[in-house]
């Protein structure tokens, strides 16, 4: 009999089994119930198949802000077809499209772009994430409470970016006269030299961390040039303060860059580190009243646009209390 030796995988890929789960009717229902009765020793397998087949859910939703932002962009494209054709629509790459949209946003938000002698300064406020496309096609995602500066007029010789706070870089290759144009990110004393690659830089509270997703980068301490590290994908290097040694380790880069996808993921972070993170990203004060908790490690994630969820989860998952007093959150 065909189904006698089926595995869970076989069942789930089988059209007749799927039909029973997804669209039961008299015929398939009686067949499968009969089969189950006839094959008691296969119960465990088919039970797992049934459980799994009926459990698929996709619950993603747009946030209210996303929903209205998308509609605003659609209305804009619809009502200004000429503008849309030239600057918004697909004549451009989708990333440029995105940056055009985010540029519009910039005007209406706290972020400021100062254009002086072609020196660009881009900043984000607490809780805000920005995407910036450079003239060479490179894409920078700037996390909350962060600042970038760069001068595009020298980009043909050297692409240099200064970052405070945190940013994720996706660097496009640039060639001038058959030569690769270097791309250098400065974070405090460290300079990160790249070709085409993707990596995260965090420069907060005097400490710098560089985590590489793809490609290769060389991190040089400009204070002490002998202090140099070459990163491979999946590695990070950090420096806890100026003149300190560089510390290289293997990391889950996705964790470092998760904020980019509007999710903050943290793994075995102490409450103290979490509290610093909330201050850096959202200007939210987290006060640890119960100092015994200070060094306890936490693992979890929350959507970056609703930081409140962090507190809800902490309360749910760990034996502690969160009390909001004034603008601060007290952990007890």
């Amino acid at each position: 009999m065909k189904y006698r030796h089926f595995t869970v995988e076989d069942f789930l890929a089988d059209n007749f089994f799927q039909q029973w789960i997804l669209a039961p009717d008299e015929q398939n229902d009686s067949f499968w119930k009969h089969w189950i009765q006839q094959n008691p020793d296969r119960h465990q397998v088919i039970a797992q198949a049934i459980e799994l087949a009926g459990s698929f859910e996709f619950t993603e939703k747009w946030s209210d802000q996303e929903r209205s932002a998308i509609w605003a962009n659609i209305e804009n494209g619809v009502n200004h077809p000429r503008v849309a054709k030239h600057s918004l629509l697909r004549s451009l790459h989708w990333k440029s499209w995105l940056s055009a949209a985010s540029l519009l946003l910039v005007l209406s938000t706290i972020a400021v772009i100062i254009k002086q002698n072609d020196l660009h300064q881009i900043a984000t406020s607490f809780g805000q994430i920005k995407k910036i496309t450079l003239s060479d096609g490179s894409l920078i995602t700037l996390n909350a409470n962060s600042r970038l500066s760069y001068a595009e007029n020298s980009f043909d010789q050297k692409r240099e970016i200064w970052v405070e706070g945190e940013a994720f870089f996706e660097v496009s290759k640039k060639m001038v006269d058959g030569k690769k144009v270097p791309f250098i990110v400065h974070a405090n004393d460290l300079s990160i030299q790249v070709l085409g690659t993707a990596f995260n830089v965090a420069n907060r509270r005097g400490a710098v961390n560089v985590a590489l997703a793809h490609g290769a980068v060389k991190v040089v301490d400009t204070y002490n040039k002998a202090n140099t590290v070459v990163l491979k994908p999946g590695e990070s290097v950090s420096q806890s303060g100026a003149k300190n040694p560089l510390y290289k380790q293997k990391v889950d880069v996705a964790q470092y860059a998760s904020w980019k996808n509007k999710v903050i993921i943290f793994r075995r972070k102490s409450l103290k580190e979490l509290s610093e993170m909330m201050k850096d990203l959202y200007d939210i004060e987290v006060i640890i009243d119960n100092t015994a908790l200070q060094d306890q490690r936490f693992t979890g994630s929350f959507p970056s646009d609703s930081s409140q969820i962090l507190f809800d989860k902490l309360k749910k998952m760990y034996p502690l209390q969160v009390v909001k007093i004034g603008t601060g959150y007290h952990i007890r």
Partner: protein
Amino acid sequence: MPLCSTNADETKHWHKLLNGDQQALAFFYERYADYLLKYGLSVTYNRDMVQDAVQELFINIWNRRQNLSVPDSVKYYLMVSLRRIILKDLLHARQSTDVFSEEALSFASHESLFADEYKEDVHLKLQHAVRLLPARQQEIIFLRFFQKLSYEQITTVTGLDYQILRNTIYRAIKTLRHSLSEKIALTSVLSIFPLLI
């Protein structure tokens, strides 16, 4: 039939749309925006890209409304059109960004991270595990088990034949079971079983 033909209400609004009523466009946007996000994320787990594609989709419909007819199923039409836009964008992205694809930054390597979370919620776990699958496997799972399309319908959407679809689901389930093996308690599975007989 999961992709039932367009109902009277939708037909009415689609005609309004073709006649230049922007409210009708908003009607379809409101109705299908979340659905398109779920499906779009199954084609590429990149929220920004899906957002762009959704925008382009609705702008295109509006701009081309003079040439459009009433589709058999609006939902199906939106789904297939969104898919086409995303695949085109993925191709562009690959050509212009030096091997690196944003997909690599999706949840693909978060697997271990979620292991510690949500111990109580098998469904959520499964949902996370599905989002760790390769894009094609996600899409086929979405279309078959969530959207409940038949194998034939999935073939018309994806161009993949029966045998490939079957194998894709087989491989996806194998991976899912592997990543869920410690998380789905056997007891919970067995406890539902007596109800079935």
